[in-house]
């Protein structure tokens, strides 16, 4: 009670206010209990508000309430999360017992689709929805990560473990050889990078998976569309003020098993064939360089938001601060987000509004290559030698730099990025059924980077003779302006919604930068270009732009709520293509049948919902590496030096081939779906079969070097099919003990159907000049390709009699002679596997009971391979992975692990470096506790929750690397190769949620 007395004045004041409020209006008293229709269980914490006032209460642990209202004609509003709100006129009664209906049973869920919303029951396309409740629970830095494991057929992998990094998302497989990222639409503004969106600002995320849903985005819809809707203000008397915060710690999920110093020295002696290290065993463990590079790092987030409004004005305003230190030393990220979403009903025909987010992020990036350096550094070196200097590892001719020195000298970088993203809109309602909307979306980004490298010398290959400051700035300004006209009407059993529109958009990116050397000091205030020597200055600048105009049209028609039809059409014209290929037309149609509205199904008491869907449509993809793929540009700066004066003579010419005939990449998609709700919709099941057939795929295709092009041309080259199934299963039970189980399963089969004329195969991912990726008809895109290990040459006799490449010695790998011609050559290379998983799945479970909430998410994938590319690069003598210790020696006649070598035939592209990429991961677990509402209501707090959560805490993986989810580029020819980038972390967080 000490606390109470300390704060007595405060409590008394609150109490006094409460009394005064209640006493003034006490005229009519109502009481009752609130239950759920499904099971009759009492509902705790239901909000009850006297309409038009701030007078309210909530139900207690038995579902009972009592409220005193202004008079016998007052109206009560009952609301409860997950249930449909109800308004009840008191009509003089003193007792009102009420059963609330769960929202999901009402088929009234509204789903955001392109350029509008639709009732879920009217939907004819395949749309996956993630609601704010699911997102808010997860302590993730961006919305892309929040999608992981939530929607069937959506594959999410982190693009890097770098703090603040986004994710690579694939919807229903990889449907292109080109950029396969989906399109993001954030509050109506189109972007390809939604990593700036603060997850706590999100109301819902919808994933448009099939042609019917995505076709309205025409040329950008082929890879699927992710619509992110941020929270808008709600009309309520009293603003809801929320505070969300968490703080936690992160570390690396696992370490790679590398040789220790004694083992390394032993193998090095063996490799050199001499006792370079006199007594290897004496070296012991040596340095684990992973410990020098990785660390345990904190992560934290705090958000304050206000949501409210009236009939005329509504608002959602939030401020967020997120900070994440990286698990690699000297890397960190912090971000401030301010969001203002408002809407104004100016009169009965005009509404205007805006959704605007400003983000400021600052980051420090760890020096490139330190993660790889930790993997490669021989453990026989200490980070610093006995004199305290950084040790010089080039002693062995390893061209690698000391990662500890890199971290020390190359970490002075500061990056800042400001982004203003949002939209302004105006809606005009006229002629009763029509709404005209003009929407202007904008996305302006400004980035600054600064990097200073002091003079240092660790070794002849790790040094900087002249200090240098480099600064850079980027500017992007994108806008989109959309005019749409909507007609909505219901005549008898017919319900129409018709949409037509015209849009124009432009994107512009520019960069500018420069550098100088010879600074008078290294203090921060000196690190501006003006302090450097101007004779050493350099600069650069460049820009790209593109534009798109489109017409769009869609009609939704529902008859008797049973028979549903959607037809859409979009015409796009893109600046990326030249006439006559500039225009692309993208039509689609879809049909739906709500069987649950039919008499013969309604008689089945078990079935609450049953719908069949079919859709077919054509989508496009204009994305290609360049904004001007059809234009042959002249490269300049190709200087020649002539004369004793060594004058710089400008050189400029065409250095690469272009393709002026480039046209739209096109994808035909079919989807058949079934939705089923059983047991009062507690069980929900959804299954879709789809077929995405993509043709005229745009991609840069390697051409022979004799063409002389410095860069590969971009062409319409191939046909790819992704066929598969998406399953979603959910069981939800609400009540005193509410719980849920869920599972998603995505099966995808990726197959290349054709390559361009006269082209049988595409090689890519060249490792030391040899392709590791091979794309050929009948196999998945970018399949792994190389030799198969058949064994090891055990003796001279085998070496001389069995097929070989040439250059092998006893103890080296023996590759399989697949064509049986007695020699090993390029023809013996074969398909080794694919980086594309066959199956992606997830499981979720959770419960709420007496204020305790618990949720757990697992996700996994199988059938994919990983090529451990980092192990194959040996430009010097690097450390080896532990398995190499079991190498072949005359005494240890291994058939799998060759003798110790550093390059040569054992390092050719082969299944030696191919590993199983399947994994099963505990993605997230959260346990929370909310204080009982009846305690809180007395201090006007509606929610007080504390929670503990963990991310990536446990993983079952076969892959030897840090994580089977490793940084991957977006080039579909080169996926699944682990070059040893920044690994993802596991983390623990504790947090607090407070709602006033």
């Amino acid at each position, binding site marked *: 009670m000490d606390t109470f007395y300390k704060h007595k004045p405060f409590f008394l004041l609150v109490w006094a206010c409460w009394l005064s409020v209640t006493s003034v209006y006490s005229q009519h008293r109502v009481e009752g209990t609130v239950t759920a229709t499904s099971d009759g269980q009492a509902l705790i914490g239901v909000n009850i508000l006297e309409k038009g006032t701030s007078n309210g209460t909530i139900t207690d642990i038995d579902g009972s309430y009592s409220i005193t209202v202004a008079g016998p004609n007052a109206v009560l509003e009952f609301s409860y999360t997950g249930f449909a709100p109800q308004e009840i006129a008191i009509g003089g009664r003193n007792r009102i017992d009420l059963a609330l209906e769960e929202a999901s049973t009402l088929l009234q869920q509204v789903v955001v689709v392109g350029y509008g919303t639709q009732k879920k029951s009217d939907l004819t396309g395949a749309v996956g929805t993630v609601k704010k409740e699911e997102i808010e629970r997860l302590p993730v830095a961006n919305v892309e990560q929040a999608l992981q494991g939530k929607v069937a057929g959506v594959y999410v992998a982190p693009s890097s473990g770098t703090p603040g990094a986004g994710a690579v998302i694939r919807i229903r497989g990889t449907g292109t050889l080109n950029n396969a990222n989906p399109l993001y639409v954030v509050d109506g503004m189109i972007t390809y990078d939604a990593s700036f969106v603060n997850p706590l600002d999100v109301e819902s995320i919808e994933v448009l998976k099939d042609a019917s849903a995505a076709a309205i985005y025409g040329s950008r819809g082929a890879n699927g569309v992710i619509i992110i809707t941020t929270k808008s203000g709600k009309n309520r008397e009293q603003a809801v003020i929320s505070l969300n915060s968490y703080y936690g710690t992160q570390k690396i999920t696992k370490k790679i098993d590398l040789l220790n110093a004694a083992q390394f020295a032993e193998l090095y002696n063996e490799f050199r064939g001499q006792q370079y290290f006199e007594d290897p065993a004496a070296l012991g463990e040596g340095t684990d360089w992973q410990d020098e590079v990785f660390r345990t790092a904190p992560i934290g987030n705090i958000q304050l938001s206000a949501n409210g409004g009236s009939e005329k004005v509504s608002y959602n305003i939030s401020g967020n601060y997120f900070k994440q230190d990286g698990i690699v030393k000297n890397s960190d990220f912090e971000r401030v987000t301010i969001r203002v979403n408002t809407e104004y009903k100016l009169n009965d*025909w005009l509404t205007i509004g805006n959704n605007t987010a400003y983000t400021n992020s600052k980051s420090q990036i760890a020096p490139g290559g330190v993660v790889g350096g930790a993997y490669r550094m021989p453990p026989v070196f200490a980070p610093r030698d006995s004199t305290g200097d950084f040790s010089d590892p*080039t002693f*062995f*001719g390893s061209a690698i730099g000391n990662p500890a020195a890199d971290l020390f000298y190359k970490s002075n970088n500061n990056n800042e990025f400001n982004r203003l993203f949002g939209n302004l809109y*105006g809606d*005009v309602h*006229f002629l009763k059924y029509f709404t*005209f909307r003009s929407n202007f979306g904008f996305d302006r980004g400004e980035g600054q980077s600064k990097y200073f490298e002091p003079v240092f010398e660790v070794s002849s*290959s790790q040094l*900087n*003779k002249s200090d*240098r400051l480099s600064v850079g700035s980027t500017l992007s300004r994108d806008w989109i302006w959309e*005019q749409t006209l909507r007609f909505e009407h219901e005549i008898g059993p017919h319900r129409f919604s018709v949409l037509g529109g015209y849009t124009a958009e432009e994107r512009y990116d520019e960069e500018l930068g420069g550098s100088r050397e010879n600074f008078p000091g290294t203090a921060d205030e000196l690190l501006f270009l003006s302090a450097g020597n101007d004779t*050493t200055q*350099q600069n650069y*600048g*460049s820009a*790209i732009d*593109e*534009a798109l*105009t489109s017409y769009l049209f869609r009609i939704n028609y529902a008859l008797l709520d049973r028979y549903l039809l959607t037809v859409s059409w979009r015409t796009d014209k893109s*600046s990326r293509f030249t006439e006559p290929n500039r225009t692309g037309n993208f039509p689609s149609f879809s049909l739906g049948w709500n069987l649950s509205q039919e008499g013969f199904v309604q008689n089945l008491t078990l079935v609450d919902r049953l719908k069949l869907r079919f859709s077919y449509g054509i989508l496009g993809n204009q994305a290609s590496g360049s904004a*001007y793929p059809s*234009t*042959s*540009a*002249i*490269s*300049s700066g*190709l*200087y*020649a*030096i*002539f*004369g*004793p004066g*060594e004058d710089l003579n400008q*050189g*400029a*010419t065409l*250095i690469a*081939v*272009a393709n002026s*005939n480039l046209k739209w990449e096109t994808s035909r998609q079919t989807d058949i779906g079934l939705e089923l709700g059983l047991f009062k919709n507690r069980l929900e099941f959804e299954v879709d079969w789809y077929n995405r057939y993509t043709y005229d795929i745009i991609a840069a295709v*390697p*051409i*022979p*070097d*004799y*063409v*002389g092009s410095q860069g590969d041309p971009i*062409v319409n080259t191939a046909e790819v099919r992704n066929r598969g199934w998406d399953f979603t299963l959910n069981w939800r039970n609400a009540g005193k003990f509410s719980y849920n189980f869920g599972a998603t399963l995505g099966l995808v089969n990726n197959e290349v159907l054709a390559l361009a004329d*006269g082209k049988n*195969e595409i*090689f890519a991912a060249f490792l030391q*000049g040899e392709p590791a990726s091979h794309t050929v008809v009948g196999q998945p895109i970018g399949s792994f390709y190389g030799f198969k290990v058949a064994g090891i040459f055990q003796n001279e006799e085998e070496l001389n009699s069995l097929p070989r490449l040439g250059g092998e010695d006893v103890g080296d790998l023996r590759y399989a002679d697949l064509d049986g011609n007695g020699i090993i050559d*390029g023809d013996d290379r074969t398909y080794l596997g694919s980086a594309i998983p066959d199956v992606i799945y997830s499981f979720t479970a959770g419960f709420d009971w007496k204020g305790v909430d618990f949720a757990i998410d697992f996700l996994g994938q199988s059938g994919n391979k990983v090529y451990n590319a980092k192990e194959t690069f*040996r*430009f*010097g003598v690097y450390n080896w992975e532990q398995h190499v210790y079991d190498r072949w020696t005359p005494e240890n006649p291994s058939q799998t692990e060759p003798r110790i070598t550093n390059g040569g035939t054992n390092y050719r592209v082969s299944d030696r470096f191919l590993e199983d990429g399947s994994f099963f991961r505990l993605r997230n677990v959260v346990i929370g506790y909310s204080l009982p509402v009846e305690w809180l209501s007395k201090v006007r707090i509606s929610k007080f929750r504390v929670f503990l959560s963990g991310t990536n805490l446990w993983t079952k993986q076969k892959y030897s690397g840090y994580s089977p989810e490793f940084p991957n580029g977006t080039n579909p020819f080169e996926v699944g190769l682990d070059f040893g980038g920044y690994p993802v972390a596991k983390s623990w967080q504790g947090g607090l949620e407070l709602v006033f």
Partner: protein
Amino acid sequence: MRTNSLFPKKWLFLFIAVFMAAGCQKDFLERKPKGQLTFDTFFENGEQAQESVNAIYSNFRSWEMCAFPWIGITDIISDDADKGSTPNDAQYVLDLDNFTFDATNQAFQQSWSGNYRTIFRANVAIENIPKVPEMDEKLRARLIGEAKFLRAYCYLRLVQWYGPLPIITRQLNDDEYLTQVRQPVESVYDTIEQDLLDAIADLPEKSEYTSKDLGRATKGAARGILAKLYLVKHDFTNAEKFALEAINSGEYSLLDRYGDNFLPVGENGKESVFEIGAAALQASVAGPGATPYNMIQGVRGVPNLGWGFNRPSDDLVAAYEPGDPRRQATIIYVGEVLPDGATIVEDNPDVLNERYNQKAWVPAHAGLQDNGPGNLRLLRYADILLIAAEALNENGKAADALGYLEQVRKRARGSNNFILPEVTTTDQAELREKIRHERRVELAMEQHRWFDLLRWGIAGEVMRAAGKNFVDAKHELLPLPQSEIDLTGGNLVQNQGY
């Protein structure tokens, strides 16, 4: 009009919005690359024509054209040099040295693409300069001549390494990228010959260029390379003819001191027939005029001038006649004072028996090692004299050959008459040996040796004597890059033995 109607305002609003949207310009979708000219608006004047040719020279300083992929399959693969550097640095270069390479060795892909990229630039110039609407006609002819010379030079390198080649003399259409096949070496020779004959016709002599343009291709350079082509073809009559034309032009003479050829003082000097200009124009990073040539061969350790690749071999050291001062001018030893007169090379325990290529040494310069300023000396007058001597001897004119040989030896001898005695034999076979020996020591570490061994047909014999596993009927040609075979689906047939 009734004032209380909302319609007029509402319609006005709609009207304005729709018209603003429709007001977009017609050119909204016409976008051009920013900060770059486009091909369809290039080649409009003489200046641009000249820039397109400068861009060809520029590529000779690329990594592919002058670093590992160049040194690796000229000096290091030959008996003149070992890989150098520390034992394990750059395995693929070691594979070249040891004859353990295969078709995936990066050196092949890089040298192949580097030369074909240069050829691409030359093709662009040769095809488009004739279409430039208005320019000085003499300049037009000269620029086309320069481009043809450079194209021929690249093909001569390629044909000696790889044998039959796809001959690309224009920009390919996109349906032709994969369909090229290897043409017989004779066709490649014909292409080179024609380009060089055209170049001789259109190029000025060295003395006709202004000093600002020194380093551009000349009549003399084209004659010299053409003479070399004829040696490769064993057409000694023509080799003699063009070598003598170059000699008799009076444009060239030997520098007094052999070593000056490789110092800044010798750049574009009297003895220079063709060289690619380079300069260290920026302080710390590789500037726009730099080459990696000096860095990769620079002293490794103390002083730290580079990576220490291309170590002059024991075999080369032994090849010099007693007292030949060219040995000292070619090789940097531990303990030696560098030509700057101040720096002493210290022993580096990581580099075994270190020696360095002195001809790639450059004095202190702005920037780091990768900002190499040394011009790439591709053809010296001494080379032309020895070509003349070789051709004359093969044509039965041993007595005439002796004079040219002696010019080279005399300069090397300097004032010391106790060394390098004048060669007097007129026995063809004996003189052939003398000339071959002279070429080796005079041009050592200048990337000529491998080509000489190949055209003399003695590569196998010499390499095996040097302890290398040279396989006859295989190693006379290098393998085509594996990626090239793969990309063409076997349209290009691999060389025998690979």
